[in-house]
């Protein structure tokens, strides 16, 4: 009995392997022979498996929306996608986290419909778009304030000036101790934590503080995972780090904010709060967050509807995920730009 069962198992599995192999080959040859390439377009509309779908109302959307890019913008796009898919059940939205730069690499190749960006598109990326014949629409969706944080036990560092931050973070900086920043501070080693070089946050911080994107000292602890930075600063009294406001908002008991002064007068320093980030008084570390949309994709009804939803409803979710809603004129500008782009089609 056992022999029989084992034999059948073996033969059946072999047969299965053979059969699948053959059928795929057969269908491939018959497919290329009997069905000429023009049928490719037709096949999408005549779906034999579900005839009722064809009769469905015209407003029923289907298809894919592909978004990729910044991990900072991800929570917003994810929230919009989550709610959007509750309304439009047949639309499949996927949101990737390749980083702003990594996402743009795909965007300029025409692989994605939407890029989540924690900075504006760079000159190099614009050029790549031109080369590939890709036109895009840039929309502001929220505002983020990069937060400089220290350990809660740190009772000396309450404010820093941009000049001090530059002294601390610039390329080749030899600054090692707190008292080198301010003589009144302790003679203890500063340990630095920051995002890795693939991050848009890193690009923005280095440009705002050191004057040029990606210019930064290299002897700090980098991590693409902001929770690692939170843990690092939390576990070390002499540490200092920076990351997006959302990570501060969710870890207020673990790290302490440092006020930042634009210029070199520490008494003018401003703490990042919802209000100061929104009003722009928290300078220079508050930044807009964007989505970039491929105009060709915007012609697809499901993408157009998704972006419309994003701009119309997105602000409600921005607060949910701890970013700061756009000020009214910025939101109006985004709405207007979208309307223009949609009507141009």
């Amino acid at each position: 009995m056992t022999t029989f069962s084992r034999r059948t198992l073996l033969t059946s599995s072999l047969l299965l392997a053979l059969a699948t192999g053959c059928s795929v080959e057969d269908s491939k040859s018959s497919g290329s022979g009997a069905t000429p390439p023009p049928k490719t377009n037709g096949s999408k509309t005549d779906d034999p498996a579900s005839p009722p779908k064809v009769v469905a109302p015209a407003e029923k959307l289907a298809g894919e929306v592909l978004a990729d890019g910044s991990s900072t913008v991800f929570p917003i796009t994810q929230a919009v996608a989550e709610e959007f898919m509750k309304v439009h059940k047949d639309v499949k939205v996927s949101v990737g986290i390749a980083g702003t730069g990594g996402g743009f690499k795909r965007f300029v190749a025409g692989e994605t419909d939407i890029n989540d960006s924690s900075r504006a598109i760079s000159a190099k990326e614009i050029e790549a778009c031109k080369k590939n014949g890709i036109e895009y629409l840039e929309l502001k969706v929220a505002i983020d304030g990069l937060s400089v944080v220290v350990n809660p036990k740190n009772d000396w560092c309450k404010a820093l000036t941009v000049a001090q931050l530059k002294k601390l973070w610039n390329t080749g900086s030899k600054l090692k101790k707190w008292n080198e920043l301010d003589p009144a501070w302790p003679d203890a080693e500063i340990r630095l934590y920051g995002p890795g070089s693939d991050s848009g946050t890193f690009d923005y911080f280095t440009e705002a503080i050191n004057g040029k994107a990606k210019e930064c000292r290299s002897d700090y602890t980098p991590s693409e995972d902001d929770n690692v930075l939170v843990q690092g600063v939390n576990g070390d009294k002499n540490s200092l780090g920076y990351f997006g406001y959302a990570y501060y908002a969710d870890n207020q008991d673990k790290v302490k904010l440092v006020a930042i002064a634009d210029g070199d007068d520490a008494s003018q320093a401003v703490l990042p709060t919802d209000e100061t980030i929104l009003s722009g008084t928290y300078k220079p570390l508050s930044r807009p967050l964007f989505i970039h949309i491929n105009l060709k994709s915007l012609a697809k009804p499901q993408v157009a509807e998704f972006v419309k939803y994003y701009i119309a409803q997105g602000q409600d979710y921005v607060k949910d995920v701890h970013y700061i809603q756009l000020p009214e004129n910025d939101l109006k500008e985004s709405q207007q730009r979208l309307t223009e782009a949609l009507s141009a089609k």
Partner: protein
Amino acid sequence: MSAPAKLQEPELARRHRIGKVFEWLCCGSTWFGLVVLAVLLVSVLWQALTWPAPKVKPGASGPTVAKAEDSAIPLSKQFFTNYDSRHPRRAGILAPIWGSLWLIGLVALLSVPIGVGSAIYLEEYANEGHFKRLIQINLSNLAGVPSVVYGILGLTAFVRMFGLFGKGGKTLVLNLGFTTLDVPLPFERSLIAGALTLALLVLPTVIVAAQEALRAVPSSIRIASYALGATQWQTIRHQVLPAAMPGIMTGVILALSRAMGEAAPLMMIGALTFIAYCPGEITNVGDIFRNPHGLVDAPFDKFTALPLQVYNWINRPQADYQHVAAAGIVVLLTILLLMNTAAIVIRHKFQKSTRW
């Protein structure tokens, strides 16, 4: 004669002491691994079963307020039926579970016939020589290649297909008789691209394990079979393969559990995404019968997998997600444990049924 015996006595006691110390050292190293593992499991399980106390923030409201649709513990029934969500207490694991199951199924379909086939060729047919030795060395080296490298290979070979199909790609329509199948070329970030990448990753392991199993079959069995007039095919089919089956199956299942836990190559091919739908829109076993077309569509859908989803959750700012991630880890570990148990059971069953 008595003098040397007396001399040996203190020596003997010392040697026994050394033996005891060595025994304790070995015992200690055994327990070291086990204790660390136990601590890890307990802490993950603890995290998976509790939410952190809600933070009372001055002026903050909304997300911390519990709603009816929020689950009571991270690892709840709802966790298995929900998709990922921006509310940690509503986040679920439905899409990654189906993604991982599809992935493992496809990897098995791809790697088992090819892996076992090449093992049989190398062990039973190929002549000893430089060529075989070259293949053998390469196989052992491939088994040690870091998985990220396979990810890069998968990205160029399957996701982009070397850019052969130009911008936008093409769609190949296959007529399967009962239904038609749209195959996007290149595969892009679909299940099939992920499965092919992981299949490449585990192939060397499968081949080496299958070879070991075939080599363990005593050559007297083959010779006896030939002596009775069996051909080489008959010998392999009726004697060698059945005898080697337990070893092969064990190797295959262990390789599949490795594929199940891999995150790096899938991240390389860009599968780290928020996905709130299942491949082929099959969300439970019943859907397979209701929507059989989903079965052929699924391999070409976008996907996410358990280790990717866990990684995604760990990266989120809200502390609650660490607990959701822990729940995901518990599910992943349970599936892996079940697979390894299956490997043991299968080996046991096949071993019992060996005829000689």
